């Protein structure tokens, strides 16, 4: 017995020694840099917003394959560096820092949560890196928290909310309630919605916030039913959207009030099925958007993914990658000092129509879409049908602001 134990001790020690002494983390990986264009993506691949991160990953990988088949950008292949952050800002900062210091990454995209993005942006100058957001919603990123090396190619939270509120002006709902996720994006969008409703002269009866990853929404639903509202605005995403919508159907919430939302991904529509039918949602991207470039994109996507259609953040990520391509091509470089001026006032015409990266606050000026979850032939689940397309200058806020004047 004694000898076995001492042997075990020894092997434990040997293992411990090897693990601490030898590892590659203490050495540099920059030597094998090569000539690729590296894009760092610290994504929330797991956790409550994992489905969003997975979409961003697929969107970027699909685009990278497509562009590399065409010879890459400036004759250089694109290489993605993807790491899981679990949606934790501290982990996100650490992984991004590792990408910069070990792998010499100078371009970032895909950081999933707004809270993660808000933690990253103060570091961009020190890292000499450009970060183009493909999904971060928080309005502050292009207002109070704007830094020179940050750009937003996607529709922001306030823009999505604005699209829905412009649509609501044509409807007769009178009393509104809002339910948002309890972090940067949720608070920001609910605040914008509240202001929009009040400016319309209608009644805003209350708001409530749920922690990301809430499994049981029954208490929130009870609160909604008691609020007396005839419409509720949801600022949820990922697993939270699935959980809420499925439970709202059980409680027949839709018979009491209209369900409006800032986001409803296809993955959620697949998961909850008919429970989401009739929901009015602001879409950052929908595969049903009617323009030739989008049709081409959807066909390409279907070919790659066995007939599946692209989801919201897959389309947004594609658009973001296209902004990268146009910017890098125009700059002739990925150096922050050259790429920044090239991205400013850059315009591309792609799957969502024209996107203009305005210089004043680095927000991509683009159209807004309102969709309704509807049945469509050939699909076993509801899909987003575009019911309103709103002009870019109507949905994009004034420079450096996240609220609207009219």
């Amino acid at each position: 017995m004694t000898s076995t134990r001492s042997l075990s001790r020894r092997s434990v020690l040997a293992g411990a020694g090897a693990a601490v002494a030898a590892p590659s983390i203490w050495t540099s990986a920059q030597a094998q840099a090569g000539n690729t264009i590296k894009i760092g993506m610290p994504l929330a691949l797991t956790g409550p917003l994992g489905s969003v991160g997975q979409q961003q990953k697929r969107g970027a990988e699909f685009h990278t394959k497509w562009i590399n088949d065409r010879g890459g950008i400036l004759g250089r292949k694109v290489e993605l560096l993807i790491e899981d952050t679990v949606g934790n800002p501290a982990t996100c900062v650490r992984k991004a820092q590792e990408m910069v210091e070990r792998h010499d990454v100078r371009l970032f995209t895909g950081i999933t949560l707004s809270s993660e993005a808000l933690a990253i942006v103060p570091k961009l100058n020190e890292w000499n890196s450009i970060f183009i957001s493909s999904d971060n919603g928080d309005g502050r990123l292009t207002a109070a928290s704007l830094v020179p090396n940050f750009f937003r190619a996607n529709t922001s939270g306030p823009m999505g909310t604005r699209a829905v509120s412009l649509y609501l002006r044509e409807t007769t709902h009178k009393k509104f309630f809002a339910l948002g996720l309890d972090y940067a994006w949720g608070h920001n969008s609910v605040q914008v919605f509240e202001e929009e409703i009040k400016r319309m002269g209608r009644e805003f009866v209350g708001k409530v916030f749920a922690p990301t990853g809430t499994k049981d929404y029954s208490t929130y639903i009870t609160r909604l039913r008691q609020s007396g509202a005839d419409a509720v605005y949801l600022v949820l995403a990922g697993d939270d959207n699935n959980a809420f919508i499925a439970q709202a159907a059980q409680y027949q919430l839709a018979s009491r009030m209209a369900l409006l939302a800032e986001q409803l991904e296809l993955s959620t529509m697949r998961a909850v099925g008919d429970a989401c039918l009739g929901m009015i949602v602001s879409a950052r991207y929908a595969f049903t958007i009617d323009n030739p470039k989008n049709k081409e994109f959807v066909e390409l996507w279907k070919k790659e993914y066995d007939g599946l259609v692209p989801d919201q953040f897959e389309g947004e990520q594609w658009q973001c990658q296209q902004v990268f391509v146009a910017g890098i091509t125009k700059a002739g470089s990925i150096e922050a000092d050259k790429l920044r001026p090239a991205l400013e006032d850059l315009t591309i015409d792609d799957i969502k129509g024209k996107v203009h990266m305005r210089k004043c606050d680095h927000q991509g000026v683009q159209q807004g879409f309102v969709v309704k979850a509807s049945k469509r032939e050939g699909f076993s689940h509801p899909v987003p049908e575009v019911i309103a397309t709103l002009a870019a200058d109507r949905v994009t806020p004034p420079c450096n602001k996240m609220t609207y004047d009219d």
Partner: protein
Amino acid sequence: MRVTSLLGPLALALLLAAPFGLPIFAMTLLTELVILGLFAMSLDLMVGYTRLVSFGHAAAYGLGAYASGYILLNSALPLPFAVLAAAILTGMIAIGVGWVCTLATGVSFSMLTLAFAQLLYAVSFKWTSVTGGSDGLAGIPRNPGPLGLEVLSTKNGFYYFALACLVGSFFLCRALVRSPFGAVLRGIRENEAKTLALGYNTRLYKITVVAIAYALGGLAGALYSPFAGFANTELLFWLVSGQVLIMVIVGGSGTLIGPILGATFFLTLEHQLSSYTEAWALFFGLTFIAFVLFAPEGIWGLAKRYLGQRAPEETEQAPAAITKAEAKPHG
């Protein structure tokens, strides 16, 4: 001369020379390691020397991190002063925590420390004006100074600052555990009733050690937020308390140096495993089980054994037999 007595100066020399030889990312890791080492060492004062097993040491870390982050964001106070102020603040709050928690002993003490940490965790979510809620505090600067000195704000300057904090705290703790005060702490660890009967107000001693441990844990947290440029609620989560306890046990409790090694081992293993597999936590758990079963004296105890030297029966060192006996309840 014993081999182990040479290890200290050698390790210190290596740490001092590190910025000249290591690549930039390794320096980032090393700085984090120095901070975590300090954090783990602070807990050792409670766990290893007084057997006050805290399940809520994240409270100290998070408090320090938020305090220094808030000061640095909202004032021009130079980095070293902000960090020191945060540590002192944490220590002062800990007097209250210690007063409440030492009303109980054993598992109840542990539960109270956990409860306090979870309380702070909840507060950090709701007190948005100070903590930034679930978004945390971002863009925490390393304010220059004092006297216009900018050297501490640089990457390597900050590393040396953190290292100085660790080394300073180490000598402070060592002096403390070798002093008569330390003897009373060990008395409490071995037999509190007897120590009480000898005429020592053991509760006062316990409150003091909690305050010192929290202040040093707070110092580690206060270093972390300007290091990462960021502080959020995760720092106060019970997971952090569990991890630091693992560092202490794996490294070797009641040795001061062991928990620093434990932190090194923890961070390195986490980075190595997570680059190979997403299920790294599983392998990490297995490693922890192996340590508790086969090496209850921890890395430092193993290292001494490996160097062909029995743990010396000096007063400042925990005798091997006691370390072993004390590690058992953790298993």
